[in-house]
């Protein structure tokens, strides 16, 4: 298996507050990699360090290395290309104040693709992948911000897929959508796994168990345990805290 993302001795800071205390792990190509852990444990910050949007928050800093496809993200000369390689889905749905069509076409257009035929087909493909197409195909020119919360979340996923990423990061994607849609998207993720690497940050331990091959338990900026799901969700975890968190005893 090739290593898609390699994190080595990562330390991140908001001002003087240290979020990650030197964590190291690898994510393999075409796996679904789940990250679980209570609030404030650094899950979202980790994703933002990987696609380098952490730097948009003043006062943040990171040390150590993150490599995507072997390339150090801190030293890359094309940070926009790096971000396009990574699809990012935020916990709260964000419909841009544009039409549904333009929401999905935004990323291709901002990388210079304006071919109408390509965009039409591409928008449809992304909306189908995110299980939204059937609901919006007749009103692609209405505003994305006027969709319901669950629809906006799927629109966000369609947008994350629109720049043909190799890595898809989902940050608690299911907190704003109903269980039926969640299951539909989970099915989509199993399909997408064939073409991309998926990082799934989730508060639903069972979701990590259902979908991921490996799960990482992050707590207060440290990796408590990282292993195959058979181990993580068994009675034989290396760290007692993992067992307790997974089984809802603490956290």
């Amino acid at each position: 298996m090739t290593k898609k993302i390699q994190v080595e001795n990562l330390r991140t800071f908001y001002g003087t507050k240290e979020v990650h205390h030197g964590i190291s792990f690898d994510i393999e190509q075409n796996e679904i990699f789940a990250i679980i852990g209570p609030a404030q444990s650094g899950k979202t910050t980790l994703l933002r360090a990987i696609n380098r949007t952490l730097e948009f928050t003043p006062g943040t800093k990171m040390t150590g290395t993150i490599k995507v496809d072997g390339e150090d993200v801190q030293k890359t000369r094309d940070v926009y290309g790096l971000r396009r390689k990574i699809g990012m889905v935020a916990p709260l749905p964000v419909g841009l104040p544009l039409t549904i069509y333009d929401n999905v076409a935004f990323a291709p257009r901002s990388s210079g693709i304006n071919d109408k035929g390509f965009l039409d087909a591409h928008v449809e493909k992304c909306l189908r992948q995110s299980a939204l197409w059937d609901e919006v195909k007749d009103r692609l020119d209405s505003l994305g911000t006027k969709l319901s919360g669950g629809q906006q979340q799927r629109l966000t996923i369609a947008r994350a897929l629109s720049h043909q990423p190799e890595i898809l990061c989902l940050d608690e994607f299911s907190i704003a959508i109903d269980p039926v849609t969640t299951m539909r998207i989970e099915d989509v993720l199993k399909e997408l796994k064939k073409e991309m690497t998926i990082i799934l940050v989730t508060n639903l331990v069972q979701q990590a168990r259902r979908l991921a091959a490996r799960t990482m338990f992050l707590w207060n900026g440290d990796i408590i345990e990282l292993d195959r799901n058979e181990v993580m969700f068994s009675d034989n975890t290396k760290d007692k805290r993992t067992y307790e968190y997974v089984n809802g005893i603490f956290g």
Partner: protein
Amino acid sequence: MFTETPFIRKKKRNEVIAKCFFGFMAAAMVIPLFLIVGYIVVQGAPAISWEFLTENPRSGGAKGGIWAAIVGTFYIVFFSLAFSAPIGVLAAVYLNEYATENWFTRIVNLAVVNLAGVPSIVHGLFGVGAFVYFANFNDGKKSIIAAALTLAVMTLPVIIASTKEALSAVPRQFREACWNVGATRWQVIWKIVLPNSISGILTGVILQVSRTAGETAPVMLTGVATYKLLDSTGLFLYHPIKDQCMALSMHLYYIATQANNVPKATPFAIATVLIGVVLIVNAAAIAFRVYLRSRKKW
């Protein structure tokens, strides 16, 4: 069963007293506006006629109309905003969208805040030094361009502040969503931020029209004459660099305090026109804002 104890009765009474007191204070602030506007309009309206608006002043302002002053005010407002609006809006975009917290932005923000607090007469003196003598547009004489630039410096901080407010009303999560898909800051500004803040930006700029039209002290020192007629051949023929002009605010000051044999109603008529111009511009800004808000996209 609810029984009213003395404590509850007292609480209710205090509530009524407080509400009436605060309500009266809120109403009180409307009174001066109505008194001022009402008094001026009642005194001035009879003197306003088509001739008063379209004829030039005669006999040192005692007779004739105020046409030259109206045109001069438009000249000053137009040229002033032509400088301050683009510079102010672009500076605000930088400060709000690009700048991070460092010594440079702290100095700029400090300058903006303090510039807004400088009295207008000081701006006038600055304008004399900077635009009349140093920039020397018109051989060391006052000129329309000097007055317009002075007012532009004066209105810049307000335009920057109102534009920044309009920009920051666009939720940050829109920007983050765009950055996540590999868009540059400029792409986000152009496609998302500006289209959704343009109403607020324009409203802020339009409101500066009324302020620019009303200022007297800075323009008196830098570009406005008490008596400077338009070219006899035409209507809009002030030369923005070579000419001084008249202005409604200055004309009002002159007629009310310096000129002789002026009919009592004339200053009120000028004031009515000035207030009318300001109210029309403000009403247009409000209508514009209401219209754009009805098309708000989230």
